[in-house]
């Protein structure tokens, strides 16, 4: 069962964590908010993997979804709007022993923090980046976001948004050193859980775009996708997200996809960005992409005496 590894049958672990061990404050998202499903999925994954709560750090920016760390009973840092990734990079780069999860929204990641998004992808630190994409600014009460679909009426575009929406998957698949890109939906907890679990297993920056319903402001945006699963395309295959056959049956459209094929991944993302055959599953994965912390931790194992001797040499440089 969950978390019981075979060798533990001989030796009982000192600590066994239940779901409650990962539950922080009571979530104050709106009823029916897709964020709640993500929260549960992450707590389950940590419980399944028996990850000690103190080894996990949840980092977020600002927005509805960025309240995520407060609802997790782990270490958490709720930072600045757009700056979740730099803070997470600061933590992860110096503490590779920690399990870092980033909660960011479409405004936080794809608008004010877009510069960091490109570069964090290139640094490729080992962390899970969850993009809670509800296609609107929710916390600030309904303004157009970069991923808002054309025609969405918001307080900033009362006649309807007119720019074509930014597609985070297309963007990610164009960034240098991208190592993991997946998409899932909040309303299918099995697929959501399985996708995040794959992301967590991957070594490198695992980017998961979660299509996330906002019942308050964009109820209509994902309604059709939710009601009509034929608009989605389930990616399957040996290397893809594995879900229960009963769950797979929900998806009329399924396609074999090899996540090592970035060309095919880009084509899927491009088609999905048109609103038809929106792919769910792993689009791209390459575990061989270099991770930032591999380089920066090199050469740091110096003894205290050597450091002191080096320091004295440095101070004495050019001494008279």
């Amino acid at each position, binding site marked *: 069962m969950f978390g019981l590894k075979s060798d533990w049958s001989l030796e009982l672990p000192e600590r066994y964590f239940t779901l409650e061990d990962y539950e*922080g*404050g009571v979530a104050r998202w709106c009823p029916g908010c897709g964020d709640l499903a993500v929260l549960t999925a992450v707590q389950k994954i940590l419980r399944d993997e028996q990850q*000690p*709560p*103190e*080894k996990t*750090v949840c*980092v*977020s920016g*600002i927005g509805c979804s960025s309240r995520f*760390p*407060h609802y*997790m*009973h*782990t*270490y*958490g*840092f*709720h*930072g*600045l709007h757009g*700056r979740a*990734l*730099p*803070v*997470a*990079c*600061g*933590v*992860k*780069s*110096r*503490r590779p*022993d*920690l399990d870092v999860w980033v909660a960011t929204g479409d405004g936080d990641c794809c608008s004010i923090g877009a*510069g*960091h998004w*490109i*570069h964090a992808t290139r640094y490729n630190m080992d962390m899970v980046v969850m993009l809670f994409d509800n296609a609107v600014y929710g916390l600030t009460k309904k303004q157009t976001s970069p991923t808002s679909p054309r025609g969405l009426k918001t307080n900033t575009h009362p006649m309807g948004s007119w720019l074509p929406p930014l597609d985070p998957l297309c963007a990610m698949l164009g960034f240098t050193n991208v190592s993991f890109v997946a998409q899932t939906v909040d309303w299918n907890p099995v697929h959501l859980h399985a996708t995040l679990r794959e992301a967590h297993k991957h070594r490198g920056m695992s980017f998961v775009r979660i299509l996330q319903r906002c019942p308050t402001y964009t109820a209509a945006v994902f309604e059709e996708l939710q009601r009509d699963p034929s608009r989605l395309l389930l990616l399957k295959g040996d290397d893809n997200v594995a879900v229960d056959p009963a769950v797979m049956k929900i998806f009329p459209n399924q396609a074999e996809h090899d996540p090592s094929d970035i060309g095919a991944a880009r084509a899927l993302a491009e088609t999905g960005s048109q609103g038809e055959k929106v792919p769910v599953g792993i689009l791209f994965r390459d575990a061989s992409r270099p991770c930032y912390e591999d380089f*920066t931790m090199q*050469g*740091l194992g*110096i003894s205290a005496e*050597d*450091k*002191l001797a*080096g*320091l*004295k040499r*440095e*101070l*004495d*440089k*050019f*001494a*008279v």
Partner: protein
Amino acid sequence: MNPAALKVHLKDLKPNGILIVNTAKFRPNDLRKAHYDSNPLEDGSLDGLRVIEVDLEERTREALADSPLDTRAKDRCKNMFALGMLYWLFHRDMQPTLDDIRKKFAKKSEVADANEKVLRAGHTYADVAGIFQTSYRVPPATDLPPGRYRQLMGNQALCLGLVVAARRAGVQLVLGSYPITPASDILHQLSSYKHHGVVTFQAEDEIAAVCAAIGASYAGKLGVTSTSGPGLALKSEAIGLAVMAELPLVVIDVQRAGPSTGMPTKTEQADLLQAMFGRNGECPVGIVAARTPGDAFETAYEAVRLAIKYMVPVIVLSDGYIANGAEPWRIPALDSLREIEVRYAAQSPDGAPFFPYLRDAKTLARPWARPGTPGLVHRIGGLEKADGSGNVSYDAKNHAHMTRMRAEKIARMADDIPPARPLGDISGDVLVLGWGGTAGAITAATLRLRKAGYSVSALSLRHLNPFPRNLGVLLGSFRRVIVPELNGGQLAMLIRSRYLVDARPFTKVEGQPFTSQELEEHVLAALEELSA
């Protein structure tokens, strides 16, 4: 000097000063280019100076008559002729320069030969042509305390101060930075210090740089970020985050002339109020300023000490003048420096819940709890926290309390910093009050005035927030307080509002440091006004 250089630097010469002029560059065309209507060598505008006219081009070509170099290459050696003359004038040993020439042109022996020849020719020329009426000897410095000395530039000193402080504290130094003039050298230098356990992160922008430093501090390391004025502006929101999260952070601002891009290579002290107030909300931080290149070492060390002890961001103000200026610096004994103690929070043995904002009774610092420590799981961030528990709180009374706490932490540092000790007497006619890089000029001017019998004292502040405890008393002990600054009067504004003292600003915003002479004249005028 050619005409253009003469135009810019003439004002720096004292009356009766020596001016060496390269007559080869005073042809009508050269004068036109420098916008001279008449030849300053002939129109009397250089009266009162000791003008030495030398045709550097002609003399250099003469010296190199046998050299295989072409004329252009020969002309490039003419600065060595002037340098040779100066060596004679000051009786200095030419050997270090001769060695340097050999080293620099090791692969071009004919260039090395030419430079050496011209240098020696300049020296001989000054000797035999009798162009100078006198020559000078600068005795070796004898008033410096004994010890080992090295040459040190301001940016280097900051780096060493940080490294030594981190080492003393036993914490890893993590620099997040983005290239910007004139602070980039700090990133360069610390990048080469990996063998000291220093880690640098060249971030994608200024904001990411400070955020990564904050992330590192949260993770239990010492986060540092270095920048100049425009970068400090970009970092303001994140510095506020570190104030709210109550994490140690050292921010280095090597100031340059602003606003906006301004004059990146020119010096100014105009970021004091930005450092003091440039953030949203009531957002106090510690501020220290480096006064000389060597002083930057102790200033950086002090910033680390205060940041860790009080769990606050501390801004270090340096400037372009200090950054690239050098001075002989006495290497300190490592164990003579003040202690920096890091106390990470540990799990309570009885399993009592952890309070991330439970404060130290004396410093008001909250505990530094590293992720990965069992039992200390907590969430922090930019939202207002309830004191003690650290839970998000919108409670009115709590916000007022926390705002006071954040200010009080900074205020209490005043008990932990040395009192201000003026140069000269602790009371009198005039106190020249400066901060940061003006210290050299202020000291020189004050010493000269005191020697002439005037009642003048000087004080150059390192600690700008909080001020030293005794500053108010000192200010009240002088008939006149003059505040020279390379800005529009920022310290004067703080002093006036804080102490209700009629401090008189003396400001300069020309991208250039003060000369001791202009300070001396200004103070002298004030003294005359007081005695009238």
